[in-house]
Structure formats: structure tokens, C-alpha cells
């Protein structure tokens, strides 16, 4: 059958996206081998390297597990229960996405220094990351056909049995996708673990730059994260299985909400236990900084300019990322060949790299191949694409997978060429994913610091660089207005994401 050969119009841009995503890998290999293979062995074959890798893996595992538990529970509450106020809660649960991990970590550590350490790092990273699981799971839950559950119940299964044996297995794909993003993100994080003084593997990578002034050493160490990412990506695709598209005709009936009954107070308790530390606490801290900063010398026009730059960059990053992510996502959802899988996985690998490594790798490529745009806006946008491609690829793939491939097969059998099918069937099916992916990239770009700092056009200030600028010299008071603007405006795409998954 012809349908097994995806059109070149998809393969070529997907290959280009994949090439962009592996730019850091090229750099890492080049720099690592700079000083010979022996150096690589000496650098890696150290007790401390192993210890720190284990620290990071442990942290990543703990945070991912907690995010899955909180994310699934929150998604179920807001989609399937009869909890009053669940629509509001749905949006509220997504808001921690607007809080950068470094800001959340500093909010805690400057309030109670005792929280430092493993538990503090787990706390902060879980609270800012669980929406990565909650949002796709909520979306999947709202699409599930309640008919199946009714049948299972009528066959004598208890509620719990239905949940464990029918509902959860159907959520596997979305849980796995969210968990992968969380796990990779935690491996790459430096801001939160630095503030919490939990010695994760990124410490030695940043140390190699900041204290050792040794980019080669940093490259060798960062390669370990690439290998870990590969393992995780492969593990995820086997845990994911193949998504099952709904095959029934018509649109799915909306399920009857589950009565919580006496469990209602428990549900509110859970919501408060998540939202107080994840949303209310950082907001309270930021507002404190702002009120303390009334005497500080903060110009409104500076905040406004930084906000405008932030929004502009985020919009460009979202647009560019979506354009490159679309072919990869469609191929990943539809092609059964190895190519689609390779393209998709390649976009995830750089996601485990700390921002500074991606930034320096783009410096490497920028001065050699892209000199005219070096330290200009397009190279910065390219940096965001490398960082955030998987967020958009996952969203596009997810939406396309929801629709049965039969739709495209029918269109083909009616005489449409592959391009026409792509344009008239697949692309419209992917629209929700395109929107969700764009919002996610927009949001994450707003918070991004390391790549922005290194690659921005001279003189461009974003909310994140302003935050850095003020916090690196003095106290947080001067940074307060920028932190507030960042969190408030990042909350808008976060809320939209939540609304879209309803």
C-alpha cells in the first residue's frame, strides 16, 4: 500500500527539524574529543561523576513519580468528579507552569533556609512540573468513552477495578509522555537544585564553566545526560505502547461525573495541599518583594520594555517551533517506519541538557556556520527551538493519534494525493495540538534564562534577564516587579492550556 510511504513534503522538513535538534550533540562530540579519548575516560571514570549521576537519577525518579501521582489525581478530580468548582480548579492546577523553577526555589530558600537539600529540590521541582502530566492526562480523560466504563460496571466490576483495569491503562500514553518531559526537565535543571544546594549532576557541568573555565570538560560531562535522555526516551516509547484512537462513530458521550460523596473534603484538602505551596506561596513571596521594593529604583518603562521583548520572543519561538514540530509530530503519529521514530526521538534528546550547554553549542555553530545571525534574533529563536521542540512535537503527535488513521485512508481511497490528505485531513486534526504546543512553547520561552542570556541581541532585556540582573547583584526587592510581571503574564497561556484540555 502507498500509505506506508509518507510524503517527502513531510520527511524533508522533519529531517530538518531533527537536524536542528541534534546541533548540541554535534558540538558535544566535537568538544569532548578535543583532548582525546583518554581525557574523556578520565573525566567520566570518577567516583564523583557516578555519585552525581545517581543523585540526578534519584531526584528525577522521585519528582517524576510524584508528578504522575499528583498530575493524574488532579486531572481525574477536575475532569471526572462532581467536585464543585472543578472548572476553576482545572485552571488553577495549571498555573504553576507560570512559575520558573529558580524563582520557586528562591522563594522557599529565602523564606526558610532549612528546606535546602533533596527534599527541598523534590518539593520545588514537583510543584512546578506536575502540570506536564496533569494537562495531557486531563485531555485524555475527557476524551475517553464513558460507554466502556458503564459496560465494565454493568459486568460487576467495582469503581476501583474499573479505574485500575480500564481507565488507567487507557491513560498510559499521556502519562508516559508527560512523565518523560518531567524526567528530562529535572535532569537538565540547575536553577532549583543550585538554590536548594542539592548536588545534582548539572552542578559539575555548571562548575566546569563557572569555576573550572573548561568548556571541554563541561561537554564531556553533558554527554552523560544525552545518554540518560536516550535511555529515557526509549523506555518511554516502550511504556507508551501505541495510542488507541477511538473507533466508534459519532462523538463520545460526556460521562456522568463520579459522585465524591464523603470523599469531598478529602478532594478539597488535596487541592489545597497542592495549590497553596505551588501557587499561593510563590505569589505571596513575590508580592512581598514588590511591596519591599517601593523604595527601589525600578522604572515602569523598563518593566514594560522587558515584557514586550519577552512576549515578542515567546511568540517567535512558538511559531518557529510549531513549524518544525508539525512534520515530526505527524510522522511520529502516522508512520510505522523507523524514520518517524528516529526523527521524533532525536528532538527529545537535547531536552535533558542544561540551558548553558545548549547555549554554548549554539555559540559554537553560530560563529562557524551562521556568522551573519550570530548574537542576532534568529539565532536566539533557533536556540529556543532546540530547547522546546519536544513540547510541541508531543502535542502535535498526541492530537493526530487521537483520530483514527482510517480517516486518512478513506480520503486516499477517494482519490486524494498524499499532500491533499495532509492538508485537508491531517493538518486540521492536528490543530488542537498545534495550539497546545504553541502555548506550551510560548510559556516556557517566557521563563527561559541561560540561552537568552548568552544569545540575545546586545541590549535586549527580557523579564527573565532582568530578574537575573537584579538578583545577581542584590536582594530580590528590585527583582520583584519583574517576577510579578513574568508570573502574571505567563499565567495567561497556562490558563489557556487548561481551558483547551477541557
Amino acid at each position: 500500500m502507498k500509505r506506508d510511504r509518507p510524503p517527502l513534503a513531510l520527511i524533508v522538513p522533519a529531517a530538518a527539524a531533527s537536524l536542528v535538534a541534534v546541533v548540541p550533540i554535534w558540538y558535544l562530540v566535537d568538544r569532548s574529543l578535543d583532548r582525546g579519548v583518554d581525557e574523556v575516560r578520565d573525566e567520566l571514570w570518577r567516583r564523583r561523576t557516578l555519585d552525581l549521576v545517581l543523585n540526578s537519577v534519584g531526584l528525577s525518579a522521585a519528582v517524576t513519580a510524584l508528578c504522575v501521582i499528583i498530575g493524574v489525581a488532579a486531572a481525574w478530580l477536575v475532569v471526572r468528579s462532581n467536585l464543585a468548582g472543578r472548572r476553576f480548579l482545572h485552571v488553577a492546577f495549571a498555573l504553576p507552569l507560570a512559575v520558573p523553577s529558580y524563582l520557586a526555589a528562591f522563594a522557599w530558600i529565602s523564606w526558610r533556609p532549612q528546606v535546602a537539600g533533596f527534599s527541598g529540590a523534590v518539593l520545588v521541582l514537583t510543584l512546578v512540573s506536575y502540570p506536564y502530566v496533569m494537562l495531557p492526562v486531563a485531555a485524555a480523560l475527557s476524551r475517553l468513552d464513558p460507554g466502556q466504563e458503564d459496560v465494565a460496571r454493568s459486568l460487576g466490576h467495582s469503581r476501583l477495578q474499573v479505574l485500575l483495569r480500564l481507565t488507567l491503562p487507557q491513560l498510559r500514553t499521556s502519562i508516559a509522555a508527560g512523565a518523560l518531559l518531567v524526567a528530562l526537565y529535572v535532569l537538565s535543571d540547575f536553577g532549583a537544585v543550585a538554590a536548594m544546594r542539592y548536588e545534582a549532576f548539572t552542578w559539575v557541568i555548571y562548575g566546569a564553566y563557572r569555576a573550572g573555565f573548561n568548556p571541554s570538560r563541561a561537554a564531556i560531562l553533558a554527554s552523560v545526560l544525552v545518554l540518560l535522555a536516550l535511555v529515557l526516551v526509549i523506555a518511554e516509547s516502550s511504556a507508551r505502547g501505541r495510542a488507541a484512537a477511538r473507533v466508534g462513530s459519532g462523538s463520545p458521550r460526556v460521562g456522568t461525573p463520579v459522585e465524591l460523596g464523603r470523599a469531598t473534603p478529602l478532594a478539597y484538602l488535596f487541592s489545597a495541599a497542592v495549590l497553596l505551596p505551588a501557587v499561593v506561596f510563590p505569589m505571596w513571596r513575590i508580592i512581598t518583594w514588590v511591596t519591599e521594593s517601593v523604595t527601589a529604583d525600578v522604572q515602569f518603562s523598563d518593566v514594560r520594555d522587558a515584557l514586550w521583548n519577552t512576549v515578542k520572543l515567546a511568540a517567535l519561538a512558538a511559531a518557529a517551533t510549531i513549524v518544525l514540530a508539525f512534520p515530526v509530530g505527524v510522522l511520529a503519529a502516522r508512520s510505522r517506519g523507523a524514520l518517524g521514530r528516529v526523527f521524533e526521538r532525536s528532538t527529545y534528546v537535547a531536552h535533558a541538557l542544561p540551558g548553558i550547554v545548549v547555549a554554548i553549542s549554539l555559540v559554537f555553530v553560530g560563529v562557524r556556520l551562521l556568522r551573519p545571525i550570530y548574537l542576532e534574533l534568529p539565532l536566539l529563536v533557533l536556540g529556543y527551538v532546540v530547547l522546546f521542540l519536544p513540547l510541541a512535537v508531543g502535542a502535535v503527535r498526541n492530537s493526530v493519534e487521537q483520530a483514527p488513521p482510517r480517516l486518512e485512508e478513506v480520503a486516499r481511497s477517494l482519490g486524494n494525493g498524499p499532500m491533499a490528505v495532509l492538508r485537508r485531513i491531517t493538518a486540521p486534526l492536528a490543530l488542537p495540538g498545534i495550539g497546545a504546543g504553541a502555548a506550551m512553547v510560548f510559556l516556557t520561552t517566557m521563563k527561559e534564562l541561560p540561552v537568552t542570556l548568552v544569545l540575545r541581541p546586545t541590549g535586549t532585556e527580557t523579564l527573565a534577564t532582568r530578574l537575573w540582573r537584579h538578583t545577581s547583584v542584590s536582594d530580590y526587592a528590585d527583582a520583584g516587579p519583574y517576577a510579578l510581571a513574568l508570573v502574571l503574564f505567563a499565567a495567561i497561556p497556562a490558563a489557556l492550556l487548561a481551558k483547551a484540555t477541557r
Partner: protein
Amino acid sequence: MITRTTRLVAIAAAALSVVAAACSDDNDSSSSSPGSITVYSGRSEELVKPLLDQFSAETGITIEFRAGDSGELAAQLITEGDASPADVFFSQDAGALGALQKAGMLSTLPDELLSPVPGAYRSADGEWVGTSGRVRVLVINPDLVANPPTTVDELLDPQWKGRIGFAPSNASWQSFVTGLRVLRGDDGAREWLEGFAANDPVAYEKNGAVRDAVNSGEVAIGLVNHYYLYEKIAADGAANVRAVNQFLAPGDAGGLVNVAGVGVLKSSGNRTAALALVEFLLSETAQRYFAEKTFEYPLVAGVALPDGLPTLDELDPPAIDLSDLDTLAETQELLADVGLLTR
């Protein structure tokens, strides 16, 4: 279906046009055009911008200013190599400058720029020069400390158990430990650190928080740089600050002096302007600015110190070659090993 497709195409087209527009709206400002230099700075814009503006006003040389972490900027410069757009690197500490010197990226500065700065605060090969200095001190609360210690070894006395504050992730603290390793060897440094750790020092996020904790009496002694106290006095008024600085005994490892400094890139396309900036940073105007605005030590002889500060000669800091402070990675490993870096 057709309308949805059209809409999609429209969205994609709009997105592409935004990208294209944004890509083209940047003017092609070449950093090497006469009268313009690019400065990579590990020192913050807040701190040095007024000074650089004054330089531009006086000389007509415009400055493209790029701020970042000193170490990360050094990595960026090393990765850029000969193609670097930077003319001048203004670093927060000597270590990053030393790394660039080792990578062969800095040019030798003329003697007349180097000679006003004492030999201890510039590169022996003349490739970078210190612009201002900071001294490690003890900040103490006189209500809690009758006889302040004057050496780091006295801090190991059990009477200070749980009463000393420090900022484990602060670069200056780690520089001090690196200096201790240089002076006493790794074993000697480890011995002191183990004694210090056994005294249960209290960890804070930043030096400013250490100073505040001393001032409020939460702890009795803090290990910080000298200027944190003066910042607080400037902000709150002398009458409202209890804490005082205790400088360490001459030669004591605790009184390390580190510098911020500047170097000119070999690849600079505008060496004349770059050297003019170095000259300006060492001028009386700039040196006085550092003393008055940041309470740092001016390094050029003859410039008045901030009020009440002993001179560097009086302090007689430990004799350490600042370019030997580039082994911070090993320092962090040692600190982690004795349990003073992480939790």
C-alpha cells in the same frame, strides 16, 4: 473543512511572516566599526553602566554591553575563538581572566597601563589588570562578640559552635577556600574545613543574608566580603546597623583579596578603543567611582579609600598569586566531601 484548512494556512503564513519580519528588523550593527567596541562583562550593568556611559560621553566610543556570568562568558569567548565579536572582557574575578590568558586569547597590555596597579593584582604576563579589589572579612555583632577572632583558626574554637554564618555557594567564599588550599595544601585545607564543619556553621543563601543575620543577632559572626556592611549602612543609615567589620590579622588566609579585572581580546578589531576603555577603568574617575559606589578597593595608588577602610598595605593580605585561584572545581569537590557545600 476548507475553511479550517485555509485558516491553518493563514496561521502558518502569518507565523512565517512574523519570523521573517523579526529576522530582518535587526540592523546590521557591526561591532568593529570605528568608535564602537563590544564588552563582555561579568560585572553587572547596574554597577558599571553609569561609568561606561561617562566613558562614551568623553571619548565618543560607543559600547555594546553584554552581561553574563564571568565563567560562562569565558566559555563563550573560548568557544568563539578568533571569531569573537568581543573587544574587551570585564570579569568579576581573576580566575576567568586567567583561563582566557591560558587559552591564548588575551593580548599583552602596555606597561603604562599596568604599572600603576601593584603586581599582586594583575597578570604576571601583563595580559589582564585588576580594576578593583574586595577583601574577605568577618562581620561581627559586637553585642554577641566581646573579643573578635582575628584568624580563621580561632573560628574553630568551640565557643563559636552554631554561631557562625556563611554562604556555601558564594564564589568569594569558595575563592577563600581555594586560597586556603594554595597556602596550606589540600590536606591542610581539609583539616581546617573539617574543624569548621564540626563547629556547625549556619548556611545562608547569599552574603547579604549572612550580614543581615549577624546584624539581627541570629548568628554572632559572618564570613563575607568587606563591602556588604557598607552597602547596608548606605541603605539603612549607620545608626540602624549594629554589625561591624573585623579585618583579619596580617597574612591570615582568611583575609584574601580578590579582584575584578579587565583584558583586551587578541581578536579585537578596535584595539585603540579597547585600550582606551582599560585606561579609563584605571583612571582616577573610575577608581573613585568603585570606591564610592561599590565600596570596593581602588587598585591604583593615590586614590582615596572608602571612609574607615585600612589600606591594602596595612591589611597585608596573604601572598597568593591570583591566577592560582583557577582550581575552584577541586575546591567544590573538597567542600562537597567535607559536607560544607550541599545538603
